[in-house]
Each structure stands twice: as C-alpha cells, then as structure tokens.
C-alpha cells in the first residue's frame, strides 16, 4: 500500500487554497482488462491527492498501468472501481477542469499554430478576435511567438509538442494532465522543454500531474514523485522533492538532485526488472503456442 507523505510547504503562500483541501482526489482506483490470457489488473487500488499549484509526477516502469491511470483521470476510460474528483466534483467523462496533453503527436496538421491553440476557445464559441488574442498569449507563453501562421509540418517535434501544450493551456484547465509528452524527443530538447514547462507552471501556478518513465524529468519538475509498482500497478512510494523553487535545468547537476534520482531509481529498478522478466516469459509462451 502507498506510503503517503504530507505535501511539502510551498514557498509562495497560497491563501486561496487550503493546504489540506486537494484539488485532485484519486481514490481507490482499480482497473481490470480482459485479455486473451485472462483478466489483467492494470491499476490496483491507487489513491493519492494533488494540492492546488502542486507539480506531481507519477513514475513507473513500462506496463505499470500509468497510461491507464492517465486515461482514467482524464475521463477517457470508464469501467473502473473507485473515484476521481476534481475540486469536489466527481469525474465521469472528460472534465472541463482537466486539460490533457498526450504522448503522441497530436497537433492538427491541417490547422496553423494559432488555429491549433485557439481550438478549445473555438469549441467554447468565443468570437474570432477574442479567441485569437487569447491564443496568441499562449503561443507566446510556450515561446513560439512569430510561428502563429505556420503549419505543424513546418515545425520540429519539440515545437509541435509546445503547440499541443499551448492548446491545452488555452482552455485554462485547473489541472494539467500530461502523459510522457517528451517521450519522442531527444535528451537536450527534453531538458530545455522541461525548463519551459517549469517556467510556465511557476508563472501560471498550474496544478500539474505528469506521467513519465524518466526519473531526471520527474525530479527536475516535481514537488512530489509517486512511484508505481509493475503490474498490477500500485503506489509504492511517495517522495517529496525538497529542491528550491524557482528551478531551472541547472538543478540536474546538484548533489541533492542526484540523491533523489538514486533513491527513486532504487525503487524503480526492482519494478523494471520484474517487468523485463515478465515480458520475456510472455514472449516465450507466445512463440511456444504458435
């Protein structure tokens, strides 16, 4: 079962959000799937909370059910036990207060950058001038000023992910939910984009839940890291990251940073090797069948 530590003190006082009243409450989530090999438990009684303005990462080996968790919290998947609540409201389907950023390329290739970012505002029915003005603000926020009229095909992978980010932020979600958004990018771009994300998060005081398998990224960006076990996914440990804020990518070279990474890797390695063994056995079984 999970060992939950109390959330660390925020450096800036948040008078509006009571520290013990979380904005996101994940309570006892259990998700099972039917597979050809029999029923599979992807997520096994996962519970945690996220306070307003907090940056929490969920880290785990491949196959630990974190993407399933992402889809459940985002309301894209149902048929699970337990509940997810946002600011007291139960989540049943995609919620207005939750913004999702997906792992894959998700910009609309037929729309320009500004039209991509303005998409949620368009859905909400905002008049053209107003939504372009708002969208432009978010385009600048992610550092793509000047690229408004370009098409995604003309941009690099990192820039496209920034467009997706701006698009989700434009909807002003209370909670930002990200599923390994930098998985497809190289390490340097990751670190720099991580900087960008930190900057944005600090500026907007955006509550963020990041799903990742990258330890460096998790420690660099978060206030708290939740470590998940391999299938069936349970919360193994909650690690409070007590590094100073505001942060930048330079933090990766500090000693404390290394400590946290080592600690988390210690937990993760166990789970990751279980995953590897399970994978190999599965493949042996499969080839034996055919």
């Amino acid at each position, binding site marked *: 079962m999970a060992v939950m530590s109390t959330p660390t003190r925020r450096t800036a006082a948040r008078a509006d959000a009571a520290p013990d009243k979380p904005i996101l409450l994940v309570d006892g989530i259990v998700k099972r799937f039917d597979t050809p090999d029999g029923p599979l438990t992807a997520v096994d009684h996962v519970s945690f909370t996220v306070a307003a303005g907090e940056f929490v990462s969920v880290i785990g080996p491949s196959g630990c059910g974190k993407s399933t968790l992402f889809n459940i919290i985002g309301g894209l998947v149902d048929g699970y036990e337990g509940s997810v609540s946002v600011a007291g409201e139960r989540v049943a389907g995609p919620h207005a207060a939750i913004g*999702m950023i997906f792992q894959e390329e998700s910009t*609309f290739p037929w*729309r320009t950058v500004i039209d991509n970012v303005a998409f949620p505002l368009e859905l909400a029915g905002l008049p053209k001038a107003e939504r372009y003005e708002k969208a432009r603000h978010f385009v600048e926020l992610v550092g793509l000023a000047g690229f408004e009229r370009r098409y995604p095909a003309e941009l690099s992978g990192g820039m496209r992910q920034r467009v997706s980010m701006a698009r989700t932020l434009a909807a002003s979600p209370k909670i930002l939910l990200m599923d390994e958004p930098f998985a497809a990018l190289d390490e340097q771009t990751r670190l720099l984009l991580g900087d960008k994300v930190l900057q944005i998060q600090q500026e907007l005081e955006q509550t963020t839940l990041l799903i990742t398998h990258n330890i460096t990224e998790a420690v660099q960006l978060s206030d708290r890291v939740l470590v998940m076990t391999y299938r069936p996914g349970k919360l193994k440990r909650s690690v409070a990251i007590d590094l100073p804020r505001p942060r930048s990518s330079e933090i990766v070279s500090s000693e404390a940073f290394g400590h946290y990474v080592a600690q988390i890797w210690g937990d993760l390695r166990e789970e990751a090797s279980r995953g590897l063994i399970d994978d190999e056995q599965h493949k042996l079984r499969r080839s034996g069948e055919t």
Partner: protein
Amino acid sequence: MAEAGRLIAAGAPPRRALVRPVMLLRVVIIVAVLVLWQLLAVSGLLYRDVVPSLPAIAAALYRTLSDPGFYLHLATTGYEIVVALLIGGVSGVVVGILLGASRLLSRAYESLLYYLGPTPKIIFFPVMIMWFGVGAGSKIAMGAVSCFFPIALNVAAGMRQIDPVLIRVGRSFRANSWQMVTKIYLPAMRYPVMNGLRIGLGVALIGTLLAETKLSNRGIGFLVIQAYSLFNMPQMYSLLIVLFVLSIGANALIGRFGGNRKGN
C-alpha cells in the same frame, strides 16, 4: 517525372534538357494521329462519315460551341450532375462516417456496399424512371446512386485511418458530435474524401449521361444519341470531344484541389 531523376547517370544532360524530348514526342504522337485520321477520312476505306475529315469535325465543333441551344443542354446535364453529387455525396459522407465510427455497423453493412459497388448501375434505370419520372429526376437518381457507393466506402476507410490521438484530443476537449465531425473527422480525412469525390464525380457523370442517352430530350447525352440517330457523325465527334475535355478537366481540378498525397 521522378523516374527521370533516377535515370540520369553521371555525365547525362541535366533534367531541364530532358523535358524537350518529352514535349517533342507528345507533339509527334498528336500530329501522327491527326495525319492518320485525315488520311483515313479521305481514303474512302470506311463507310461514308464514320471517320469524318478533320475540317468537318472542326466545323462541327465550332457550330456546337457557338449554338446557344447547346449551352442549355450543357446546363441541364451540369445541373443534374451537381444535384446528383449533392445527394449521393452528402448521403455517402453521412453513411461513411457512421460506418467508419462503429465497428459493429461496419461489419454488418460495409461488405454490402463493397460488393454492390462494382455493378452496372444503369440497369436500375427502368426502376428510376418508374419512381422519378422521365424528366431530370430519374437522371439525377441515376447519378446519385452511382456516386453514393465510392464516396461512402472511401469515407468509411478514411475514418479508420484518422490518427486516433486526434480523436482523443477532441474528446478531451469535450467536443460535441457536430464539432467532432466538422472540426476533426472531416478535416482529418480531407484526402480520402476528395479522392472519393473525384471518383464519385466520374461515376455520377457516367450514370447521368448514360441515362440521358437512353431516355431524354435534353442534355449532352441526348445530343450524342440524337447525332447518332441522325447519322451526323461530325456533330457526334464534336460533342464527344467537348465532353471528354470537360470531364478530364473537372477530374484534374478536383485532383489538384484535393491534393494527391496519401495519409494525413
């Protein structure tokens, strides 16, 4: 044209120079065909006007294009095709979206469309006449039935090749069904839809024109069969030329407009 690049070995003339021989060959082919035609026409080998002389065809072409009555017929055919495309196209897109979105519906009905598609639709014409009369209605019905199938099948296939993450994006922003269709589905499959429309135009054209040749007193198809019954061969050739130029042009236009790239 990309073949030209591969074939150019070191030391061969640059690509620009290779355009000349192609143009030259095209001109040679056209001239040769025209010369052979004219020779055949004046040789008397074939029955009378089966192969009319080039000047006769040119004169007929001129007469056709300068006759205001011709444009009335052209307008009739054009109107029939546009309405046929609208009816067949809209219903095709709607059915295609429904089939593409639901695996159950697709497995139940899509093979029906797939196997009924390549059938000679003109044989339904007697039924269309009974249902819609001898006027434009039956021709439009013919065209609509013809283009419904390729459009529906193309749209259904197009739906399935949409990148699933784009659909998840729409759902995560809580777009309603209409918004999903207009802002995500249709733009995401603009190439398959355009391709379906291009094919649909081709078969709607055929359906409508054939119906006109069978039973009508208006339209290009009617003019063609009238020229046949009056044995006015130069006129028939001139009509066929106009018809082919227009249809190939329309096809090229949609092709250019809709792009020829796959995916995306």
